[in-house]
């Protein structure tokens, strides 16, 4: 049977209150409400080194038909941020265990970084994550990308146009021999601007995400042509294979 391709709207980089730097409004029902008003079909929850709120957002999104990918924003030892996307929550939870082995064993300091809350689908408080998550892993960028692929995930360097925590700011260029399918640009630029600023983007796929730490930072600027709302399909769309693709703007 021929695959049926469809165009869907997506924002693949959204933080919740599990991220110390996110606003308290970033709870499942409000995130889903905003996504629904924007007309998004697919979102990814990508907290810093934590997947604890993914299931709650997925549950909140289910009645609206919005798909939610289990993601995480990981910081390499060079302080490059990479979005890692997974289909299944159990997969992402195992990934979290692995990543936590690469983080310093330190408690979070709420007065400096903010609190990290785990909540339910209604946004009600369950517990506070006491671990320091707002820091670098000891994985190199290259190791991180390879590891994410090996775990069945899709690694995408985040906000490459930004002056810090970005592949181009911190490491200057795409490292030789690292098999990237694409990169993420922030909501502060446009694809053609990014491509003219960074010649290294030639041949790479591109997504645009809100990197939302507040509700009004969730965006709808990207259309994915995919057969289903899965990581594998996003990967194909980044590579532009099999009729899949991505348009921004």
């Amino acid at each position: 049977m021929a695959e049926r391709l469809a165009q869907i709207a997506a924002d693949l980089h959204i933080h919740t209150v599990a991220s110390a730097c996110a606003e308290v409004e970033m709870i499942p029902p409000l995130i889903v409400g905003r996504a629904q008003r924007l007309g998004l079909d697919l979102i990814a929850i990508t907290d810093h080194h934590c997947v604890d709120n993914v299931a709650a957002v997925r549950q909140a999104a289910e009645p609206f038909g919005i798909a939610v990918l289990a993601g995480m924003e990981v910081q390499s030892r060079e302080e490059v941020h990479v979005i890692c996307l997974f289909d299944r929550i159990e997969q992402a939870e195992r990934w979290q265990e692995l990543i936590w082995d690469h983080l310093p064993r330190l408690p979070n300091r709420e007065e400096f970084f903010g609190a990290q809350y785990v909540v339910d689908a209604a946004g009600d408080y369950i517990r506070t994550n006491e671990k320091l998550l707002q820091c670098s892993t000891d994985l190199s960028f290259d190791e991180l990308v390879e590891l994410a692929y090996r775990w069945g995930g899709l690694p995408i360097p985040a906000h490459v146009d930004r002056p810090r925590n970005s592949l181009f700011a911190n490491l200057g260029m795409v490292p030789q021999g690292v098999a990237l399918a694409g990169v993420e640009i922030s909501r502060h630029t446009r694809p053609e601007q990014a491509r003219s600023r960074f010649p290294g983007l030639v041949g790479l796929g591109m997504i645009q995400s809100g990197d939302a730490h507040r509700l009004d930072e969730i965006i709808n600027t990207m259309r994915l042509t995919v057969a289903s709302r899965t990581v594998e399909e996003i990967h194909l769309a980044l590579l532009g294979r099999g009729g899949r693709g991505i348009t921004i703007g």
Partner: protein
Amino acid sequence: MTVQEIIQALSLEVLAAGSKCLGRHVTRGYASDMLSCVMAGAQAGSIWVTMQGHPNVVAVASLLDVAAVVVTEHAPVDPATVQRALEHEIALLTTPRDTFTTVAQLASFGIQGCR
């Protein structure tokens, strides 16, 4: 001051160094861990002090024709970084001392900033 003289004066450990780069004369230096800044700020023939050990360090050093790279605080250096430094004739050096101390030592030998 040559790269070889700097290695001796600062007791640096050599991770990679071809014969050609050891004799290069260094008059200027640059310190940053942001490779995008190094690309914009470092000069050919300078010595670059950093805590980055990623292979892109060699790519940037080679692009700018930097004479030597000093990785401070014995920060982890990827094996591929050493390999590429050998291939590209970049002196790749390391020290347990921090960037501030290393730069202060270089400055005491008259090595100036790139700007």
